[in-house]
């Protein structure tokens, strides 16, 4: 790779695979917080994870479920970022160039997320009922014919192989897109947009399929009797919604600190808001499609999933999900002026990120708890993992230009208006 120095230290490579290029960036696109600002979220995150580790020792099963929810929240956020970058390149989007560096910095989280996923390997038996060998043994009293029939898919070696494949694929595509974009900052090679588009073409197909299957594997298989083919789309809908909230929020924070002045404008925020609104609705559409078909068919093995979530107090949580993940953001974000008013949009971005986490909580926790309960570990693991991921994002942002400044469409993005 020309004009771009690869990072040699393997630990630093995980955080950012290339040496900093910020000193060559245009002054108005430079990160001007302290270069060690990223250590703050990382420190907070690590502290929260150390506290959570106490939970691992005392309440292992609760710890693993909480950790899974926090981890899958970060994975889905990074997947949303990957989808966003892929789609912007494929469609040669102009409006989004000024905000694209934020998801680009996020997608190199996959290697770190793979490492952060390692603790879950110690909890496979606590998390995934189907990992118990006796379920597959016809002689055993706990033999389960339904799960045994799924043995060719639901077995530990294949599960781990799939997980490794997902992260390898996501990391490879992210590496290509991230380093191509950084290299463009340095040498402005006119070939780069075509290379990004080429990677995105095959990348989008594979990322779509693996996203759906990772949803099946990490979340749906928590309840191995249950299945829903639309679940992969449900997982995607939430991911793509959350990246809009994340991107807008990071841009707002950077602007609040005096960066990106006059670069990211109300027009870009309105577009991110439109996407956020659109995918709030899309999420609800998919969630309802799943619910209505199961309600209509009324098959015991399918209704079980909703049964758990509509009794013993979980019905309140389901109602909160419907109201706070759909109705409230729908009503607030539908108006043009709300999407153009930064305090309202910013509040809704935080709101939707919290609801996105709550969505995973609602998916996973009824498997563990018959009656709803909120544990401190839910908070500490989520804060810990999100802190580490956002710290590494900040680290990458601080080392490079905040905008893909030599993208041929940057001028059009800067001049973009909604009228």
């Amino acid at each position, binding site marked *: 790779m020309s004009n771009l120095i690869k990072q040699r230290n393997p630990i630093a490579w995980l955080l950012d695979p290339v040496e900093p290029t910020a000193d060559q960036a245009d002054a108005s696109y430079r990160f001007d917080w302290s270069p060690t600002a990223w250590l703050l979220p990382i420190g907070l995150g690590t502290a929260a994870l150390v506290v959570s580790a106490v939970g691992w020792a005392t309440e292992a099963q609760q710890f693993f479920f909480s950790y899974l929810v926090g981890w899958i929240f970060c994975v889905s956020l990074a997947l949303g970022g990957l989808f966003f970058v892929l789609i912007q390149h494929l469609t040669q989007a102009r409006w989004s160039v000024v905000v694209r560096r934020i998801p680009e910095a996020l997608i190199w989280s996959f290697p770190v997320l793979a490492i952060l996923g390692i603790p879950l390997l110690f909890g496979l038996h606590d998390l995934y009922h189907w990992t118990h060998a006796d379920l597959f043994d016809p002689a055993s009293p706990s033999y389960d014919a339904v799960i045994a029939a799924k043995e060719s898919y639901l077995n530990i070696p294949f599960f781990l192989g799939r997980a490794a494949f997902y992260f390898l694929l996501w990391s490879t595509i992210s590496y290509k897109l991230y380093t191509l974009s950084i290299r463009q900052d340095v040498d402005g090679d006119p070939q780069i947009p075509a290379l990004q588009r080429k990677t995105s073409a095959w990348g989008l197909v594979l990322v779509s399929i693996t996203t759906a299957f990772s949803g099946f594997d990490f979340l749906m298989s928590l309840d191995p009797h249950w299945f829903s083919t639309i679940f992969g789309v449900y997982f995607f809908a939430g991911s793509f919604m959350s990246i809009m909230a994340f991107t807008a929020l990071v841009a707002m924070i950077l602007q609040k600190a005096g960066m990106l002045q006059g670069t990211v404008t109300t027009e870009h925020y309105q577009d991110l808001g439109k996407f956020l609104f659109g995918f709030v609705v899309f999420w609800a559409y998919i969630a*309802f499609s799943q619910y*209505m078909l199961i*309600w209509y068919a*009324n098959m015991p093995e399918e209704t079980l999933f909703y049964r758990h979530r509509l009794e013993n107090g979980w019905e309140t949580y389901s109602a909160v999900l419907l109201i706070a993940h759909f109705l409230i953001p729908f009503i607030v974000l539908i108006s*043009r002026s709300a999407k153009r008013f930064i305090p309202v949009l910013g509040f809704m971005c935080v709101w939707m990120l919290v609801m996105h986490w709550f969505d995973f909580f609602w998916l996973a926790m009824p498997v563990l708890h018959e009656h709803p309960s909120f544990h401190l570990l839910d908070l500490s693991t989520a804060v810990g993992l999100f802190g580490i991921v956002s710290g590494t994002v900040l680290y990458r942002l601080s080392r490079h230009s905040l905008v893909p400044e030599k993208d041929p469409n940057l001028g059009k993005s800067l001049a973009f208006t909604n*009228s």
Partner: protein
Amino acid sequence: MLKQLIADIKASMSIYDSEKDESYGLLAEFPDPGALYHAAHGVREGGYRRYDTYSPFPIHGMDKAMGMGNSKVGFLTLGGGVFGFALAYWMQWWTGQVDYPINISGKPFFSIEPSIPIMFELTVFFAALATVVGMLALNGLPRPYNPLFYSNSFKRVTDDAFFILISSSDRKFDAEKTGSFLTELGATSIEEIHDHGSADA
């Protein structure tokens, strides 16, 4: 009062009332889209409110130059959507629960789950219908008769000519002053339009 209101609403659709002497307004021709754009802004700055611009193709930013603000069509869309939503809910309840209750696999006669797709569809349908019909209405379309059709030069508006019409019902309108004002703004020719009140002139 009511007459005034109706005239204002019609004017917002660029349908202007002609004066008693059949005077409809002044039609000024401009050489190119840029000149039209600046002239439209100038007419607005000059205090005129009842005027419209005509060009063979849409000119980007013209709505802003004319100071038109956001379209009101969104409110009609909302109204149509709410109406469709309510209609579908009522229809599902009335047909299922009241008019023709049938027991289908033990399900309730009326329940919200299977009604939501219908409510969604009719919301979208009536919202879209209200948008299209509302857009046409707000633009005063279709409009088979327009006094501007008496003008020979106006025939080129679908080809290569750019016009501004200032209605004689505008409060600031004065045939002489308005004419010289338009010339100052760069009009190449100015024509008085009379409304003879019938399509066959």
